[in-house]
């Protein structure tokens, strides 16, 4: 089985983000970048499938600037077999990303695309879904469990939906997007890091894929969340209960 895993380079969720003065985006100087956590979960799942099934190939794809090599190398160090970097200096919207991935699916012919449910930078939660519809493939989003049939042709996916779990099944090929509780990604080991040096990382200029990359969605403004107002000290429990009732309207 061949599994395509798209991974996105995003700011480390642990770092403090500040917004540029002119509101066009976030300050990226001195910010550490990592693999989007949901993509990392997708990669971990792909690696587990590979380990369980033997013979599977895990191919990483990232679309972005050359620096995204670093995240691809990390993915290779975790155990992916090879990587493709589609080079683009521009911010791409979800539809364009999906169109580029669809092109790569045509070329690579994977049986499964395993993607994160969303990237933690723009929180769009669209790429997997748009890709499935472009390919006319079945999709299972927000996966918290992935199980294959004995002949590896069908897959059953448990999805985390509001207030419960839903189980869906489809016949491959298809698209699965991962939720937080699917697994806990491994770290790249030191031997893995050294092995990754020798693995293939192919770069493809965006123009070569023949996809119209003109953005359909434009970012108008980025603004930080409002500052939290300072707390207040109350003298008695009774006062607290009253305020929760009258001011906070929580009880």
């Amino acid at each position, binding site marked *: 089985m061949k599994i395509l895993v798209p991974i996105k380079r995003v700011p480390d969720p642990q770092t403090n983000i500040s917004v540029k003065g002119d509101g066009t985006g976030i300050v990226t100087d001195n910010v550490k970048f990592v693999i989007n956590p949901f993509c990392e979960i997708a990669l971990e799942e792909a690696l587990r499938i590979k380990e369980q099934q033997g013979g599977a190939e895990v191919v990483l794809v990232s679309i972005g600037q050359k620096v995204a090599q670093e995240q691809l190398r990390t993915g290779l160090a975790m155990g992916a077999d090879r990587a493709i970097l589609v080079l683009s200096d521009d911010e791409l919207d979800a539809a364009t990303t999906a169109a580029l991935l669809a092109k790569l699916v045509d070329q690579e012919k994977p049986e499964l695309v395993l993607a994160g449910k969303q990237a933690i930078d723009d929180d769009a939660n669209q790429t997997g879904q748009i890709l499935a519809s472009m390919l006319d493939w079945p999709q299972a989003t927000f996966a918290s469990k992935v199980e294959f049939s004995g002949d590896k042709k069908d897959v059953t996916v448990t999805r985390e939906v509001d207030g419960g779990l839903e189980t869906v099944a489809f016949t491959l090929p298809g698209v699965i997007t991962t939720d937080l509780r699917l697994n806990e990604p491994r770290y790249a*080991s030191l031997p893995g890091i*050294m092995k990754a040096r020798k693995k293939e990382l192919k770069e493809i200029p965006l123009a070569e894929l023949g996809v119209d990359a003109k953005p359909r969605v434009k970012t108008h403004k980025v603004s930080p969340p409002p500052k939290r107002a300072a707390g207040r000290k109350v003298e008695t429990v009774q006062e607290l209960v009253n305020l929760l009732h009258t001011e906070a309207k929580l009880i």
Partner: protein
Amino acid sequence: MPASRSDFYAVEDLLSVEERAVRDTVRRFVDDEFLPLVRQHFTDATFPTELTPRIAELGCFGPTVPTEYGGAGLNSVAYGVMTQELERGDSGLRSFASVQSSLVMYPILTFGSEAQKRHWLPRMARGEAIGCFGLTEPDFGSNPGGMITRAKRVDGGFVLNGTKRWITNGSIADCAVVWAKLREDESDPKSEVIRGFIVEKERAGFSRPLMHGKWSLRASITSELILEDCFIPEENLMPGTGGLKSPLMCLTQARYGIAWGAIGAAIACYESALDYAKSRVVFARPIGGYQLVQAKLVDMLSEITKAQLLCWRLGRLKDAGEMRPEQVSLAKMNNVSQALRIARVARDILGANGITDDYPIIRHMLNLETVNTYEGTEDVHRLTLGRDITGLNAFE
């Protein structure tokens, strides 16, 4: 692009993608899996052996050993950033990995027979066998050449007698690299040479009592190795060893890792003190707003920055095969003594809180007393350097 506020000169940018990746992996392991455990282990004077399989899985045992013997084939700078991140956790954790990598796997790789390498190195890389290094004796620390431990040639092997003291991992090790004097010609005292032997824990006449009462490096096992007519077969002699130079070569490797490790401990203390200084209000404002405290913090960051650049350069020299042992002495002496100073000043900045284990500082401060002493005391390195630059020996 500095990854943290303790990388003032962006030394990060001088590292390769792989070196950064090694740092990130070890950093994550230390933050997520080691730091939550260390306080209890330090209190109980135990090492978290439950982490041994994880440390092995990450590849922290003998990472510079070639892949054919189970290592990762890392370069020395990557090894350095690994020890730095481990010691940001605790000097005991770094010691655990240092001893296994630099003092046990390194001599087996460098001086061992092919059979010894094939037998021990892959097991040690997988964490299935833990080793220790027995050089120091109760009466011979800074001058190990005076050691009393003797090996005597007998039918089929050797008999060892002697006592080693202050041996990291001793009681939990599966084997010890023991240094002892052997007469090539039993009737000629002048034929005596220091040789290295591998002694398995099961050998009759070999015991490894735990040492108690340490107030430093508590999250690390320290033991005595007692050899009483302990027989080991011929094949346990490491054939490439010969003279004091052999253990000293191992110490050069370990000291290299310690020079990097000390930066990790210093960073942990600096960052803790910096956070505290910015939030602790005394008199009119946060103490970080007073000139005296700022001067202390600036001094810490200056020393950390210098130490980082020193190690980076030392590592590049080592990878180029151009590093001299005296250069390692300078880095070990400087970085550890500065880290110890930083820890003491950081302790002071935290006031009373600085003496509690709610913060990592006092633990690092106590640990660094050991680190300043073992692997050549600060002054012994000073004398080594003094001899190097003057050509005059001040040791004796």
